[in-house]
């Protein structure tokens, strides 16, 4: 009896080893695919993006505001384009994050269960809408509204160039709506993951509901909320389709009523016909965008980890 059970255990442990090993190999291969993708994309972006920097000059591209890629003496300055991406994303985050986080608080803490059950699917639906739809709605609703506003504000301005409502504000508003679902969903899960004991303890000490939310639950959910912001920034800075429809796409400094061009839309709008150095510079813009996203991810993740450490 004993010997028998032993041998059956041995046999099954042998098959176990085979299954374990095979599974491990499959997992490794899958992981390698992802790593390979990241490395090959990085390599490709640098191979394609660097030559133009060598040809045209780093300062001539990064710190020069004049974008005239097809002129007799072409100028490939993307300073305004970089600034637009930074300012546009920052404005979208400044407007979008408070709305998103407070919506998450509302959904997880304040709202009656039935109302929350109705709002949650709506937020999920918002996340699923293709970006081009946001762009089209912006084009049809925001732009005409901005045009009216523009006509009133700049009625007697001799210097303002009228853009027909295609401006930085329109793009930022579209971005705000687009990052909302990301911010709401992730901060909500973070808030819900806060242990109930913390909340109870806070109530036990006599704190009000609102005090508990802002002084206990939100600090406890901080790392999740920071993740939400990072992903929101990622979505905002990487969006092309929607804002290419509403921003006007002229290269101008990023003032609210100017028609502006983002890093993403700069690539999209001219890749079709660009040739030679012009095309190479478009790849360089891609590289700049790529580096931007990398830096934002690394820096913000560091901050995130640091905070975890403190706690």
């Amino acid at each position, binding site marked *: 009896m004993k010997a028998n059970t032993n041998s059956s255990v041995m046999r099954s442990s042998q098959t176990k080893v085979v299954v374990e090993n095979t599974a491990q190999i499959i997992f490794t291969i899958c992981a390698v695919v992802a790593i390979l993708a990241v490395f090959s994309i990085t390599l490709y972006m640098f191979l394609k993006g660097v030559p133009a920097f060598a040809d045209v000059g780093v300062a001539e591209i990064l710190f020069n505001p004049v974008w005239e890629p097809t002129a007799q003496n072409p100028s490939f300055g993307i300073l305004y384009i970089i600034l637009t991406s930074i300012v546009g994303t920052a404005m979208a985050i400044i407007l979008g994050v408070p709305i998103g986080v407070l919506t998450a608080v509302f959904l997880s803490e304040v709202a009656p269960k039935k109302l929350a059950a109705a709002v949650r699917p709506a937020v999920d639906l918002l996340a699923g809408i293709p970006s081009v739809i946001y762009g089209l709605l912006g084009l049809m609703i925001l732009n*005409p509204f901005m045009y009216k506003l523009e006509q009133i504000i700049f009625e007697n301005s001799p210097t303002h160039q009228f853009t027909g409502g295609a401006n930085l504000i329109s793009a930022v508003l579209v971005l705000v709506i687009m990052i909302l679902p990301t911010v709401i969903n992730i901060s909500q899960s973070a808030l819900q993951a806060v242990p109930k004991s913390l909340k109870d303890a806070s109530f036990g000490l006599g704190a009000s509901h609102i005090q508990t939310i802002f002084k206990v639950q939100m600090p406890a959910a901080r790392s999740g909320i920071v993740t939400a912001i990072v992903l929101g920034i990622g979505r905002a800075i990487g969006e092309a389709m929607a804002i290419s429809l509403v921003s006007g796409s002229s290269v101008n400094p990023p003032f609210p009523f100017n028609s502006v061009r983002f890093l993403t839309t700069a690539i999209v709008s001219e890749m*079709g016909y660009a040739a030679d150095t012009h095309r190479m510079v478009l790849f360089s813009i891609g590289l700049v965008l790529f580096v931007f996203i990398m830096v934002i991810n690394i820096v913000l993740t560091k901050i995130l980890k640091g905070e975890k450490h403190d706690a």
Partner: protein
Amino acid sequence: MKKAKKILSLITAAALLTIGLAGCTETAQQDNSGTSGTTQSQTAKLSGNISMVGSTSMEKLANALSEGFMAANPGVTVNAEFVGSSAGIESLVGGKCDIGNASRALKDSEKSSGAVENIVAIDGIAMVVNKANPVKNLSKDQLIGIYTGTIKNWSEVGGSDTAIVVVGREAGSGTRGAFEEILGIEEKCVYANELDSTGAAMAKAASTEGAIAYVSLDVINDTVNAVSLDNVEPTADNILSGSYFLCRPFVMATKGEISSQSDLVKAFFDYVESSEGQEIIKKVGLILPQ
């Protein structure tokens, strides 16, 4: 962009296929009437390479024509490169290609070095404005003023007191290149919107009261008003008569007259002149020269 290109090429392919089929029935009819089967026997013999170098704005036309020609003559390959009008003519004169494409009239210097101007099509550009805009006519100087930013309000050109929204295309667009070149305002334009398709430019003009945009002549429809330039309406007839200035010829230049070219090149120009070829030229939105 890529998707749009794919769709475009699919459409072109479909168009070419229908044209090709139409062509088949035509030859079949000719055979029936008993005139001759020479066209078929001649084309069957053709094989070899035609090389074509030149204007980037002619890319669409050159590709459509060479694809059609290759479909009709399976033994022939047409290589088309797009490096710019002047480089194309230079390459032709230097004997490096059979056909030099130029999206402008040939210069005297080019003609004297042996290039012969064969105008295969004419590219026309229309200025469109919003339906509500009362301005029906602009002079050349007014147009230049609007696009270089010295004229900012429609009231300065006889319209209502509305700020002008200057709409153009992205750098690298053939229409933008032609527009700026014809008016002599390359890199001087102050655009409020740089849109990346003709459709977007049309839509902007249709939806924005103060907008003005340039588009290919063939896409004009009743969502916008097409303005006259120097009191000449933008029509194919006016372009052919030479009175409408916002247009340019598409030249497929040869070194020496067509009649002195190889059979292959002659066959290509026969194809361009044929009803199939002319249909392709119209399909890509160009006007036939007469």
